[in-house]
Structures are given as C-alpha cells and as structure tokens.
C-alpha cells in the first residue's frame, strides 16, 4: 500500500510541519506558501518582482447567455443567422457581428473562442459550471474563478479587496463564492449600492480614535498571537491589519473621482460606469473584478435585445480595453467575456433564441493572450463544433496559463487532492501569446 500523502498519513503531516519550521511566522507561512506571497513580502527583491508582476482579471459576465450569433460567431445569410450582417475586423480573415463595430477594430488584443461545448444549458447548472470550471459534485464545494484568482494572485496583506463582484440587475443575480477555500476569499458583492458594506467609519467614531483603537487592539493581541503561532490566528491579525487599507479603497468605487472626460470615454450606462470602476480597481491592484450585465436570456425578441445589449457591451468593453492599454495595464490584465451558455441556432416563434451549450463563444483579451487569434470552428449553421472543442475546464486552464498560474496545481481538501482545473483539461495554446 503506497503511503500517499493524500491519505492523511500523519508521517507526511510531520514532514510538512518540520519543513516550515516553528517560528512565529511558521503557521502563517505554512498556509500562505500556497499564496506564494508571504515569503516574497519578507524578501525585498521578490517583493519588487511581485509588484511588477501584479496581474488582474476583469470578467464581463453576460448573465442569461449572450447569443454567439449576434456577437462573436455570426452566420449571415444562413437560416440560423438572423437579420444582422457580419462585418470585417482589424484581423484580415475574421468577421464578427455588425452589432459590435467597436470591438471589430480591437481584435488585435483579443482572442475569440468559438468552440465551447459545455453541455449544460440550465441557468443554475450552467452558471456553476462556467463559474467554477467543473461540474458540481456532492463531496466538494468548488471555489469560483474569482476566489481562485484571489487566492493565486492576491496578496495576504493586500490593502485593497481581492475579489469584487458587481451585479446590479436582479435577473440571474448570483454571488458565487469561495467554496472550500473559505470566507477569506468571498467576494465583495455589490448590488444596489456601489459602496461595499461596512467600509465607512461610523459617524460616532472620529478618525483618530478609529486608528488608535485599532492600534490598542493590535498591541493587546500581540502576546496571544506570538505564543500561539497558527495560520488561523495569524489570519485574524491580518484581517484587522487590512481594515484601514480597505476603508481607504472606498474611493476606488466612487465614479465621481474620475474626470468627466474619462466618464464620457466609457459612457453613461450602468455597465459602462462599472467597467470604469473595474479599471480603477485593477489599477489599484485588485486581482479579480466581475462586472455582470444582465439579462441576455432572449427567449423572445432576441434581435431587439441584442441590439441594445451588444451596443452597451461593445462600447463598455472597447473603452475598457483602450483605457487599460493607454495606462499600460492591458498586458497585465486579462479581460474575459463569458456567460453560462450561448443561444440556439434555431429561432423560435417569438423571434427568440433559447439556451444552447453545444457550440458557443467567449473571448479573452490582454494578459498572456495572442491577440487576433480565433480558435475553434462551428458548422455553417452553428449547430455544433467541428473543430477545437473546449470544455469549461479547458477554458479555465487557458485562463490560468495566460496569467502565469500553474494550471496543474493542486489544493488539498483533507486527504483529497483537488486540482485547480478539472481532470484532463488543458490550456489552448493557440490563444496564448
């Protein structure tokens, strides 16, 4: 019987513990080693390196399921194509829907994937699948992409949130979550208000007192923390350390801090404003921002719906890419468009398209991505994938590879190894730089 470390063998427990030593930091380091940042913070050279490498993800979530026919994989003139045409782009052989004219001029920074076959065409199941990169399982509560990125790219002592999720509409509103990674990686979830909860100092407490009260707490806690080195105890101290920084980051969420010119550049819609806020957040070092735009679930009036929503997306996304590029942030920021599934080639009696997960599209732009790449093909009517089929896990592997995160990495849940990407899934090299 092989003595696998995965069976919870106590021998291996001892080995790990003695490897990390018994100093005060031991507890914190032993856990934070997975975050690979606490060691770096102690080493000034590495700290600098890490800052340079600070990467972020902006996920533009097209809640309800955007139609690939009206966005990235048009089929003009076909019975399934609908009334809209396709247009040329800044990539010679590539055409996208005429509803996305601005993005058509920005494919040099963007890779389109047209060959997702994810099989789950149910809002709940599809959302879970595309949020976590794998099918739901009874025994394991998988973390969503935001939690994974917060864990992999975040800093233990970060003065800004690790994971921000904006979902203003009520349809399909879904918080997602960190699963077994725990509440540490839960999102700051903004719905009706753009102000994160408990971020403001209460009126009854002057600034000085707020700070000095925190200093007293830290002072009184020191004896206990030092005598009980333990990752959980350390996280307690770390959480309180971060409070002032997080409070200061409130201004990041305030669009009034941006000059009117920037606001005009993005546009006035809620989605466009949130794209601007996303840029502010990643500029300040937030590793993962999700901006949801609902509700693309066009079972009826598909074409009207997409006329409106695509215009919003086209403007918001292109402004975001331009702005990131101008600020030198695009090479360290990965921008994703994704949904729970796509839409049927078949146009129904209400001029709608229904749920469809057999052949649909998403895009990746920026960090680690080969701009102009188009991966995968669907048949002329868009019924199925004919080349380059990708699963949700493959997309996740690709995302991690683009960000320089080891897609083969494993966490451990008790005795069980949990690879961060679903079994057998690999990055798609064709879209990677």
């Amino acid at each position: 019987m092989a003595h696998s470390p995965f069976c919870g063998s106590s021998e291996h427990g001892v080995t790990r513990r003695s490897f990390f030593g018994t100093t005060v930091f031991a507890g914190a380091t032993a856990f934070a080693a997975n975050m690979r940042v606490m060691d770096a913070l102690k080493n000034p050279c590495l700290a600098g390196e890490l800052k340079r490498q600070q990467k972020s993800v902006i996920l533009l979530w097209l809640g309800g399921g955007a139609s690939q026919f009206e966005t990235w994989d048009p089929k003009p003139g076909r019975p399934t194509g609908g009334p809209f045409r396709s247009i040329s782009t800044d990539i010679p052989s590539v055409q996208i829907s005429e509803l996305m004219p601005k993005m058509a001029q920005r494919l040099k920074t963007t890779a389109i994937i047209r060959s997702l076959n994810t099989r789950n065409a149910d809002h709940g199941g599809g959302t879970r699948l595309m949020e976590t990169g794998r099918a739901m399982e009874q025994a394991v509560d998988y973390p969503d992409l935001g939690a994974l990125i917060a864990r992999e790219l975040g800093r233990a002592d970060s003065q800004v949130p690790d994971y921000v999720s904006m979902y203003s509409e009520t349809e399909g509103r879904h918080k997602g979550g960190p699963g077994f990674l725990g509440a540490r990686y839960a999102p700051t979830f903004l719905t009706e208000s753009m102000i994160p909860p408990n971020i403001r100092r209460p009126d009854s407490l002057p600034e000085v007192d707020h700070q000095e009260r925190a200093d007293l707490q830290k002072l009184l806690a020191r004896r206990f923390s030092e005598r009980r080195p333990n990752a959980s105890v350390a996280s307690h101290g770390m959480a309180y350390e971060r409070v002032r920084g997080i409070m200061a980051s409130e201004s990041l969420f305030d669009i009034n801090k941006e000059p009117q010119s920037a606001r005009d550049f993005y546009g006035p819609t809620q989605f466009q404003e949130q794209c601007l806020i996303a840029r502010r957040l990643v500029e300040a070092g937030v590793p993962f921002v999700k901006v949801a735009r609902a509700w693309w679930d066009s079972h009826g009036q598909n074409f009207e719906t997409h006329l409106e929503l695509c215009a919003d997306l086209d403007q918001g996304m292109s402004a975001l890419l331009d702005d990131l590029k101008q600020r030198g942030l695009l090479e360290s920021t990965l921008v994703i468009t994704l949904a729970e599934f796509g839409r049927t080639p078949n146009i129904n009696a209400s001029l709608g398209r229904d749920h469809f997960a057999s052949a649909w599209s998403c895009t990746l732009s920026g960090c680690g991505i080969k701009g102009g790449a188009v991966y995968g093909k669907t048949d002329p009517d868009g019924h199925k994938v004919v080349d380059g089929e990708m699963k949700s896990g493959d997309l996740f592997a690709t995302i991690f590879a683009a960000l320089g995160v080891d897609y083969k990495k494993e966490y451990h849940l008790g005795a069980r190894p949990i690879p961060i990407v679903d079994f057998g899934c690999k990055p798609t090299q064709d879209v990677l730089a």
Partner: protein
Amino acid sequence: MNLVRCLWSWTVLLSFTGAVTAAEIASPDLTVEQAIDQYVQARISERQLQPAPNADDCTLVRRTSLDLLGRIPTAAEAKRYAESTEADKRLKLVEACLASPDFAYHFRNQLDSLLMGGQKGNHNEFREYLLASVRQNRSWDQMFRDMLIGSDDDAASKGATAFVRVRARELDELTNETSTIFFGVNVSCAKCHDHPLVEDWKQDHYFGMASFFQRTYVTKKNGVAEKFTGEVKFKTTKGEDKVAKFMFLTGATIDEPVVEISAEDRKKLDEEVKKQMQDDKAGPAPKPDFSPRAKLVELALQPANNQMFARAIVNRIWEMYLGRGIVHPVDQMHSGNAASHPELLDWLTRDLIQHQFDLKRLVRGIVLSQAYSRSSEWTASAEWPSPDLFAVALVRPLSPRQYSLSLRLASAAPESYKPEAGGDEWQKRRDELERSAEGFAGQFELPAENFQIGVDEALLFSNSPQVLDDYLRDSPDRLVGAIKALPEKGTQISTAYWTTLSRVPTADEIRACEQYLSKRNDPVAGLRQMVWALLTSPELRFNY
C-alpha cells in the same frame, strides 16, 4: 485483575472480528479518562518528549465552558473556579457543566453541525429533535434509527427524518453524506472508479451503499417514503453494466427476498407511488415489506458490523474536544490511513458499544482526561510536537454560535447573567441567549480546516453601527455602562478583562490600557474603545 482480563479477552475476541487482539487493549475496567491518558502518554514517552504542562485554571475553565456550555464563563464563574482550593474542583466543574441546561444546547449545536452542517436553510424541527434527544441522553444508535427510519408520527423521533428528507432528491448526496457522517468514510471517489488510493473502497461499495437509498423518495406532503422496487445500475471502469447488490461498507451484503407479484399489482404499486409524489391529498404512503433503509440500519448496527458505526462517532466526538481526530481526516477511516492511537480508538469504541452508545459518558471521559487539559502554549526549546501526539492543546476557532453567544456575554454587565442561580430562572435566560445569538451567528461560517478570517469580519466589527451600538452601548446592562460606574481605572480594566477574556490582565496590559484611557478626552468613549479592543481580540475569537 488478571482473571478479569482473561475472561474479557475471550469475550472481546469473540466480538471483535479482524481487530487487534484483546492482549493489546487495556482493561475495560479503566475509566475513560484513564485509558485515554495511558495511551496518549505512551506515545509521548515513546518520542521522549515532555508534554505541555496543564493549562492554568483560567484557561481551563474557559476551555471547558466553551466546550461543554457553548460559551465563555461569566466573570463570576471564572473567578470562582480560579480561586477555589478544592482538590477535586476540576471534576466538580465538569459534572456541573454536564448537568447544566447549557450543555444540551451546545451539544445539540455540535451534533447539528455534524449532521446538517453542509445543508442550507433552517431545519428547526430537526434541531428541536436533537435538543430533546440530548436532554434525555438518547443513545447514538437509537438516534441513527430515528434519523434513517424514524417516523414523524412517533413523538420521540419527530423531526429526525429531516436528515434523509433534505437529501433524498439527490441519491449521491444521501449516499455520500450518510457514509461520511455515520461511518467516517467518504467514498465519493469510488463512484467513478475503484478508489485510486484506498483498497477498501471499490465501486461495489459506493453503489452498494447507494442501493439502500435508491428507493427512498419524498412525498408531495413532504414525508419520507420508499418504493417497492428499484435497483442501482452502474458502469464499471471496464465498461461492464452491473446491478449493485445491497452492500454495506464492510462488504456485508443482503439479498432481497424474492416476492411473486403480478404485473397488475406491480403497476398498482407504481401508480400509488406516483400519486404520493404528486398529490398532496394522498393518504399515508404505502410501506413495502422489504425496506432497504431499514436493512441498512440493521446491518450497520449488528454486532458483527457495528464497530464501524461506533468508531466513526468516537472519532468525531474526540475531534470536537481535541481539535483533531484519532483518525485524521475524520472522513478517511480506512486501512491506508492509520489512527494515531489505534489501541485507544479500539478501547473507546469497545467502551462505547458496551455502554449502549452513551455519548455523554464519552464526552465526560474525554474532558476529564489529562490529554484534554494541556496548555496550548509550547515554551520548550524542542521542536513543536506533531499534533497527532496530543502533547499540546490545539487552538480552535469558535463556532459561529459559540462566538455570537460569547460576545453577548462578554459585552454584558457582569451581573446580568447568573448561571449559578440555576433552575428555571437560568433555563429561561439561557434559552433567550440561544435565540438572540442565532441571528448574528449567521454572519460567520463554520470553521473548516485551514480556517482563515476574512477582512469582511474585521470590517463588520470595526464599522457596523448596529454591531458597535449593540455591544458597546453605554447602558446599565452593558459592560461599558457597568465599568463606567467604577471609581478606579484599575478595577475598570480588570473587570473588563474578566468579563471578556476570563482572566486577570497582566501588568503590561494594565499599563497599556491605563495609558490609552488617560489620553482620551471623552472617558466613556475611551472605555468603549478599550472594550472594543478586548471584544475583537483573537483571544476571544479562539478556544485555546
């Protein structure tokens, strides 16, 4: 003594199949705590280590209160214990805690976390069932019966069926969670292939367990019922189609008696089941003569098989008080994952079976042991000992309810809660406390392995006006209001420490607080802030 051992060794040999021989297990005449300490000390001595000394009185009374009462001690309770000179004060403390109304609430909450921890939504009837069961010290095997095959018509088991009901729509969930919770065995990997690392678990075991649940369904009236037919089919990794036998995790199987039934009668039964699932005016669900779930209970509790059931709960209860199972992780009880103290586990298992699965007795023994009472500080120059030696106590985060309850007590005026009053008065007060702590407890998650506190918790305590007002209010029933009235800073500080952290402050702490308070223009604001610093201390957040 030797004669007794001889007699016992024969009896034990007969009842233990494949386990260690009697010669390797200590006498059953030992008390639970004696057996624990004997085995734990043996391994520590083997390593030539000195265990950590006993925790000091304040730490021990705090730990015992949190573990048995679900809350920190009041200042009066802590002081009384620390100042007592009685030789057997620790025994008296444990007995008093076990006899208090607090015990039932907390043990109920612990069992609730074990049984329904992963389930969302509230299940109040189930919690009521647990509370009643703990109060009457219902045996664990009887509770297992209640939960798996109990009836809502029976007062003693009413509410227990929720265990099956909330999971009945997902066969995998019901199978896997029953195996994990009651048998310490997470076989989910064995669904798709023979477990890659564990020889004990093959697909047959997974689907064998699933067959016991396959016929279970929930009626439209929200009752749990069973169909008359049905089997689990699966595909092996070789691609063969197989029909699962009813197989328990030990490999023991049962066969279903063949019943001759006409196609017509079969159709009638199927329609009846369908009606049950769709019609909320249907009568009581028909009960098949052969109930797979009842057979599972029968098999699992048979003397030939019941060690698995007993070991699993022993391990879980051990983990509740020591912070780590004798088998770790607690859902990996198999031959490839050795127990840290196999003979101890066998002894405690045998003891539990022989005492009719009396959980409270086991709890008492664990909490009275030396192993439980060790300090969580390691000051020796030697390397920190491996946690599976239990040579140093583990630091454990408070559960959401423990934290919420403790905060309520810690922020209250010292005299406002008087558990020593006992009787109905304390029963009522304690019940109120339990209810009022419920809401706030929802803000926190159940600690799992590698528990990390997120910045949201720190922000909540730092900035939420409601939280701050509730805990720091300057009113007579609050700690702030009570210490405001004290004449000297010294007593203000020590009262705050006893109430929040159950101990006397050190000289450095007194100095730091005095300095802080002196600098404040507004003395009451200063007290509020000092109390805040203590309430948000890691020392309050953890059980050490």
